[in-house]
């Protein structure tokens, strides 16, 4: 199964015959290496694990292969080097891009080979296909944002700042006085100059990175809230609008962790020490991303009765025991860490909560959470957003345990 999983990751995003060919080539490589280590005395699982480790992170292979095999037609027809296309792709994958009116693929879909592929246009013609299941961010098309906000009375003006040659800044002036300063995301492409040097050329993408957008709104100085799971609704002052469309949806899985990660971290900071939670920010992010999608990797599913209406977003905090996670092809062992599970309350106020704990204990103090033993009794604390997420306000409040039941 490990081999299958690896091959799937390494070839996802490739299409048809090319995918099969890459798969066959990598299979031959891994099996030959595995055989060599078996002869040297390793068991088959150990030999295979070592062969996979040596071949390296499947995502590296996939990114490289996609760069070659989904090369924009423009590059192919003009004879520009594929290195140029790969350069653009590498730049994009750093920022993790998504598109048109928004887009981010739910984690569940990323487990399947039919996960959505998006197409990015380059400023010099041609397109690039991008597999969007890597990182938790999302992007908004600025033109879509403008078309949504202007009819609501928001005046949008471009900042004339000579310092901003490589990016564009806009001011969004809301009807009730708030001004949001927004930067469009900067990308790069590579072009070969007359002297045959590769030049890195910046351009304004026309997209706003999701976290940038939310942070900009939060610092605008008026009340700001978010609600809803699929295509969440933002409200700033009296203006409401939706992030995502029916054809380009945004799931809360990708929206809330990304937006709230640093706020969650600040929430937990102070009751854990660095020695017990190294790499804490990454842990919070990874756990939210890994377990934000329902039912993934957990042995028990609990139904918690809340007093919230359906759709209310809540955060369930728990402490998890030491275990190892595969990260960039290597197993990293983590000591106890914080798990933050973000999800919407379902029908009749029921929150489905996947956990390794067999039974749950509700707590009223984050500091009193003990580490959840597998298949034992686990402590949890439930939090919800406050009614105003603007920057100088508290973002979360604890839900009293008296308002929760099993």
């Amino acid at each position: 199964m490990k081999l299958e999983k690896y091959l799937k990751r390494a070839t996802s995003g490739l299409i048809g015959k090319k995918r099969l060919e890459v798969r066959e080539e990598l299979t031959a490589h891994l099996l030959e290496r595995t055989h060599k280590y078996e002869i040297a005395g390793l068991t088959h699982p150990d030999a295979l694990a070592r062969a996979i480790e040596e071949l390296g992170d499947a995502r590296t292979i996939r990114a490289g292969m996609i760069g070659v095999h989904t090369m924009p037609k423009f590059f192919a027809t003009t004879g520009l080097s594929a290195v140029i296309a790969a350069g653009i792709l590498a730049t994009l994958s750093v920022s993790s891009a998504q598109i048109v009116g928004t887009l981010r693929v739910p984690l569940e879909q990323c487990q399947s080979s039919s996960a959505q592929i998006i197409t990015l246009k380059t400023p010099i013609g041609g397109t690039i296909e991008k597999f969007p299941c890597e990182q938790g961010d999302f992007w908004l098309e600025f033109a879509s944002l403008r078309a949504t906000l202007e009819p609501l009375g928001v005046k949008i003006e471009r900042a004339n700042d000579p310092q901003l040659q490589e990016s564009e800044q806009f001011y969004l002036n809301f009807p009730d006085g708030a001004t949001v300063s927004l930067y469009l995301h900067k990308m790069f492409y590579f072009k070969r100059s007359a002297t045959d040097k590769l030049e890195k050329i910046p351009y304004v993408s026309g997209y706003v990175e999701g976290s940038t957008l939310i942070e900009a709104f939060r610092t605008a100085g008026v009340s700001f809230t978010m609600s809803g799971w699929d295509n969440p609704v933002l409200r700033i002052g009296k203006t409401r609008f939706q992030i995502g469309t029916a054809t380009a949806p945004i799931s809360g899985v990708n929206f809330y962790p990304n937006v709230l990660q640093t706020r969650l971290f600040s929430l937990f900071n102070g009751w854990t020490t660095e020695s017990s939670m190294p790499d804490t920010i990454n842990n919070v992010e990874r756990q939210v991303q890994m377990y934000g999608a329902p039912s993934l990797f957990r042995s028990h599913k609990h139904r918690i009765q809340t007093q919230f209406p359906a759709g209310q977003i809540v955060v369930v905090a728990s402490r998890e025991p030491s275990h190892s996670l595969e990260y960039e092809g290597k197993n990293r062992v983590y000591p106890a860490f914080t798990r933050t599970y973000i999800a919407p309350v379902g029908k009749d106020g029921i929150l489905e909560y996947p956990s390794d704990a067999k039974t749950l204990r509700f707590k009223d103090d984050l500091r009193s959470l003990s580490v959840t033993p597998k298949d034992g009794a686990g402590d949890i604390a439930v939090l919800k957003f406050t009614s105003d997420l603007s920057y100088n306000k508290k973002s979360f409040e604890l839900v009293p345990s008296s308002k929760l039941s099993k």
Partner: protein
Amino acid sequence: MEQLSPDANLLKGNLDLILLEILEAQPMYGLEIINEAQTRTDGYFDFKEGSLYPALHRLEAQGWLSGAFQDSDSGGPRRKYYRLTDKGNRALERKRAEWQRFGRAIESLRGRP
């Protein structure tokens, strides 16, 4: 004595040249290329395997290499063998010349006040 590995960027920047040099002699498949690079350089070129395959595919897409599957002599899955094309041979000549010019330029900097 410990064999120091080259700087990763140096390796990456010259990966095309290295692959073309190795394949000049005869067609080889991925794992064979890795082993050949290590053997011929006493382990100096121990590049990341994951970067090899995208590079081979890129050179193939550029027309410098031609790849074809062949049955494995050990009965395992088919292997993809890569061979240098005429275009690849010309590219190798160019890259060798570039490398030599670069080496001479570095040499000429040595010993200057």
